[in-house]
Every structure is written in structure tokens, then in C-alpha cells.
């Protein structure tokens, strides 16, 4: 017998966790001498009150969709890919190489090639941790953390050395050619007669992100491979008994996960910066963890959680602009969301289960 209805598991628990995180964040804001209600107002107005705000919210959300999906796919196989940050950095390298060294007649072709490049580089960065986990039993959490640092050092070296254009001042690649610049939401919506801010960085990658959500849903719940991934995640011995190769599933899942994290680069590198800069990922790989936990590893949940975190990011930037609350408030909120939806899940779940059991007993 189910201990509680499915809607409670899918909606109620994340909601309560979110409220707890929000309440504590409110207390933190109070403690540093600011007004939480005013802060929330500012965040909503700054992130959702104009198409400019929405443009930033959706831009951040696109990043988090990719990294969130990356973590979610791995979660289905009960693998904790904490290396999204490094994989996204390498994805940026893939995008930069495609855009800089190949001639492109049109952005659409460049986008397709860049997506492939980003996914390949991201997947490649996940490959070694995956194979080491599958073949040698090295813990994937530790190896992916190590690979984040190795990726950071590697990109640092590339951007101050081989990839830096002659005469460049800051550690970054040259600007990508104009033909590879992606249309922003303004360019897409203008022909439809919808006015959208020209300055905001949200671009066509947002649509690619939504497409990725749909494809991941199809993969996980409508394909044989998805079934094998979920079976492996539920019980490795059972999966093995059913003829599913643990090595194969571990490696393939991590390749997909790394590829998704890498694909984030079409948004932040190709869509926004239009060149590869140092620390282009800005921690989005880690936010993917919060997004996947919040979204219960379901692509639709990841989509909603990504929008929520996009809102928090843009709202937090506005807060830092208008009040004395630094941007780091978002990191605190992110930590609290991870804490409540991930680590302290049972704290919310056990009392709720008891409540539903009691209700059912009374009803029966």
C-alpha cells in the first residue's frame, strides 16, 4: 500500500520544502536588517515585471534546464553527477571550437553543429568518471568533483594561452563570427508582433532547452534505454538479473548526462557572451543539483524548477542593485532548497506520511 497519494509526493513535499527554504531565507534577510516582503516585491518586479526581466529570467532558466536535466538523468540511474560544472565548461570549449574554426553560412547550421560539439565535449568529460565507476568502482561523486577542478585548470590554461587571440587583454577567446550569433527572443517574437526587450540575453536556446526537456521525457519513460536506466537505478541486482549490463548503463547514462550539461554552452557561450570567457558557467552546473532535486528528476519538474531558479537569479541581481543585500543571498536560498528537498527530505516526508496514514485510517 502506498503511504501517501502520489500528488502529495510530487507536489506537496517539494512545495513544503520550498516554503521552508523561503521562510528561512526570509529570516536571514530580517537578520541582516532588511525587509523580506519588500525584498520579495523587488525580486518579483525585477525578474517578472518587464520583458527585460523576463528575458534574463528565461536566459538563466535555460542554463538551469540543461544542467538540471543532466543531474536528473543521472539520478534515474542512481548516479550523482556533481560534475555538471566541469562538463558545461568543456561544452563551452566545444562551442568555441565549432564557432571559431569552422565557417558557417547561417546561425541555424552553426547552432546544430555547436549543439553537437557542446554535447560531445560535455559527454567526453563525463566519460572517464563513468568508466572508472563502472569498471573500477571509483566513486563517481569524488571523480566528478575532481574533474570539475581539472576542467577549470585546463580552461584557465587554454584561455590565457593557446586560445587567446593576439593582443587580447582578458582571458577569453576571440569573438565568434557574426554568422554564428543566435537570434534573441526579441528577434524571434518581433515578426509575431510581440514586443520583447532587445537588451535581454534570452535567445533561441530557450526553445532548444524545452525541446531537450521533451526528449529527456521520451527517453526516460518511452524508450527501452530509459526503462533500463530506471530499472538499474531502482535495483542493480534486479537489473543485472534481467540482463541489463551495469557497465553499459552507467557509461551511457553519464554520457547523456554530461552531454546535456555541455549543451548549456549554446546558451551562455554562443547565445550570450558570443565568445568563451573564463568561468563562463558561473556555478550553473551546481544549481542543476538543486533544480533536479526540486523537480523530482522529472523533465517537467526540472522545467518549472529551472524557471523558479531563473527568477531567483534575476531577482537576486535586482536585489543587489537596489538594496544592500548581496547577490550571495541566492546561494543561500539554493543551499536551503538542496538541503530541504534533498538531504532533509525525510524530515518533511515522515510526518506527512503519518498524517496521510492517520487520515486514511479515519476514512476507512
Amino acid at each position: 500500500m502506498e503511504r501517501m497519494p502520489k500528488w502529495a509526493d510530487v507536489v506537496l513535499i517539494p512545495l513544503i520544502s520550498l516554503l521552508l527554504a523561503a521562510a528561512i531565507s526570509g529570516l536571514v534577510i530580517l537578520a541582516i536588517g532588511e525587509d523580506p516582503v519588500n525584498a520579495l516585491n523587488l525580486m518579483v518586479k525585477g525578474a517578472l515585471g518587464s520583458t527585460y526581466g523576463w528575458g534574463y529570467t528565461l536566459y538563466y532558466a535555460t542554463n538551469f534546464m540543461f544542467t538540471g536535466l543532466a543531474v536528473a538523468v543521472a539520478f534515474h540511474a542512481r548516479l550523482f553527477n556533481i560534475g555538471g560544472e566541469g562538463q558545461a565548461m568543456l561544452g563551452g570549449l566545444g562551442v568555441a571550437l565549432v564557432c571559431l574554426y569552422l565557417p558557417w553560412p547561417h546561425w541555424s547550421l552553426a547552432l546544430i553543429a555547436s549543439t553537437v560539439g557542446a554535447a560531445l565535449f560535455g559527454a567526453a568529460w563525463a566519460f572517464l568518471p563513468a568508466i572508472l565507476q563502472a569498471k573500477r568502482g571509483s566513486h563517481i561523486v569524488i571523480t566528478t568533483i575532481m574533474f570539475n577542478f581539472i576542467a577549470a585548470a585546463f580552461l584557465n590554461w587554454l584561455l590565457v594561452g593557446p586560445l587567446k587571440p593576439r593582443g587580447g587583454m582578458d582571458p577569453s577567446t576571440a569573438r565568434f563570427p557574426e554568422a554564428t550569433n543566435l537570434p534573441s527572443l526579441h528577434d524571434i517574437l518581433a515578426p509575431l508582433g510581440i514586443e520583447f526587450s532587445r537588451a535581454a540575453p534570452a535567445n533561441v536556446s530557450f526553445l532548444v532547452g524545452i525541446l531537450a526537456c521533451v526528449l529527456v521525457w521520451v527517453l526516460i519513460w518511452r524508450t527501452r534505454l530509459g526503462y533500463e536506466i530506471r530499472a538499474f537505478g531502482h535495483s542493480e541486482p534486479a537489473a543485472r538479473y534481467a540482463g541489463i549490463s551495469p557497465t553499459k548503463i552507467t557509461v551511457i547514462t553519464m554520457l547523456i548526462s554530461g552531454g546535456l550539461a555541455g549543451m548549456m554552452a549554446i546558451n551562455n557561450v554562443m547565445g550570450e557572451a558570443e565568445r568563451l570567457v573564463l568561468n563562463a558557467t558561473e556555478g550553473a552546473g551546481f544549481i542543476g543539483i538543486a533544480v533536479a532535486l526540486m523537480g523530482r528528476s522529472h523533465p517537467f519538474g526540472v522545467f518549472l524548477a529551472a524557471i523558479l531558479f531563473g527568477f531567483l537569479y534575476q531577482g537576486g541581481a535586482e536585489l543587489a542593485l537596489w538594496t544592500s543585500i548581496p547577490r550571495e543571498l541566492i546561494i543561500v536560498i539554493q543551499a536551503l532548497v538542496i538541503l530541504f528537498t534533498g538531504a532533509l527530505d525525510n524530515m518533511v516526508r515522515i510526518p506527512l506520511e503519518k498524517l496521510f496514514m492517520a487520515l486514511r485510517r479515519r476514512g476507512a
Partner: protein
Amino acid sequence: MDLMTVLQVLDSTVRLATPLLLACLAGLFSERAGIFDIGLEGKMLAAAFFSAAIAAVTGSVWIGLGAGILASLALSGLHGLASITFRGNQLISGVAINFLAAGLTVLIAQSWFQQGGRTPALLSGGRFGGITLPGAEALREVPVLGPIYYELISGHSILVYVAFACVPLTWWILYRTRFGLRLRAVGENPEAVDTAGISVVRLRYSAVLICGLLCGLAGAYLATALQAGFVQDMTAGRGYIALAALIFAKWRPWHALYATLLFGFLQAIALRYQNLDLGFVTLPVQAMDALPYILTVVILAGFIGKAVPPRAGGAPYVKER
């Protein structure tokens, strides 16, 4: 390279290895008891901030140290609550603690001091100064041994000596006391410990709190001895390097000392030489930065001996009902 240069690099190695060593031993206690802890970084960061902040306000480094340890213990308690009491995912809890510390330290620093997320620079009373060991001045002129004693062994802050003393102490606790035996047992086979009538929960909480104490020392050392004050994200991945060292050491105290000295040495080299010319090839500084992580992956891959973590590590203990 003359003796003086070598000594300076080694001296810097000792200074840089100290926080790694303390954090590594912290992780050792926790993981030997079966609680994975990737939140070493966050606990160090919190301790670094609170020790510097309180030392700046009170002017006493000892009160600062106490505050740093308390902050680290509080986060340890949170980790214990999540991973022992509520049987949550220990890795996720660690990630959350790292972010919590990264965000809160800057938030509070900004609110208290308005200096862009840092504490004011600590004056002499707010810092741990170097201790000149007896006879260091007198023996300084003795060839070779004198400079070694004066430069390398003498002149560090008290926390450096505490850290090095913690190595034999940890070894003794783990391998020569009843508590240590039980601690190791609870990390390998908690059912057996429970069957013997010993509380798994209490043992694991003690391990996690010892971990907090040591992380507190590590963080306080960073902000009040190695540097004079807190700056944003000042741990700079040291918690993860300590974790790498722990794996490198295969969860053993003496090997933890060697591993952290090695990683400290790499940091000291990277700090002194931007690009290291080895004659046949020039190593860029980034290669040195990445080396601890690459070495750890190689060790984890099992090509140079196999690193086997405590068997019950990462799994919450559920008493049979």
C-alpha cells in the same frame, strides 16, 4: 637552487599543508565512522569567517578561534541531523552545507562590516603569531641544521604544531582506544556494533562533531594565521583537496600527513613559480593546480594500489524493526 630557497619552499609547504592536514583528519574521523563528508570546504569557510569576524570585533584571536569552531560544529550538527537522524543523502547534505557557508559568510560579512564580503584586516592581537622555539636564535648560525631548525621547524603559529600533533593523536585514538575501535567498526559494519549494544547514532554523532572541531581549527588557521582576515571564498577548494588527500591516504592518519604535505608542496611550488621549467618541458601553473586532482583520480582508478573506502560509508543506518 640554494639551501635557503629550498627551505623557503618547504616552509611554505608546511604552512599550506596545515589547513589541508586538519581538514583531512576531520574527514578521516567522519568517513571512518561511515559518514561521507564533502562539506569540509563549507565548514572550513564558515570557521574562517567567524574566527576572523569575532577576532576583529573582540581583538582576541582565542575568542575568534572559539567562534570559528562553534560555527563549524553547528554545520556538523546539521550534517549529522540530515545524514544520521533523518537518514538523508550524505553527499547532498554536504553539497548543501558548502553552498550554505559560501552564501551566508558573504551575506553576514557584508551586513556586519560593509567591506564587500570581507572582514577588516586583523591586527596583531587578532592573529596567531609565529612561535620561536627555544634555542632557535642561538642555533641559527650552525651550518645546515641551524637554518633548518630556525626556518622550517621554528616560527610557525601554534595551530601548525597542533595540526602536526593531531596526526599521532588520531592514530592513537583510532587504533589504540576502545572509542577508536568502535568508530572504525561503525564505519565498516554498523549492525555488528548495534548488536553489541553500542549506540550507532551516538558514535556517528561524535565522529561528525570531531570532524567539525578539526574543520573549525583548519578554517581559523586560514583566516587568523595564514592570512590576516577573511575574504570571500577564501578556502578556494582546500576542502576538496583535503578530501582528495584523504582518498590518497586511503583513510589512514600517517598517510594523511604525507598526502597533505605532498599537496601542500605542490601548492607552494605553484605559488612560487608561475611556470616550472623542468628542462625538457615547461609546466604551466595550471598543471600544478590540477595535479592533486589528477593524482587522486589515478589513485581512485586503482592503478597505484586500490583505495577502498569504509564499507558502510554513505549508507544511513536503519535499525531492524
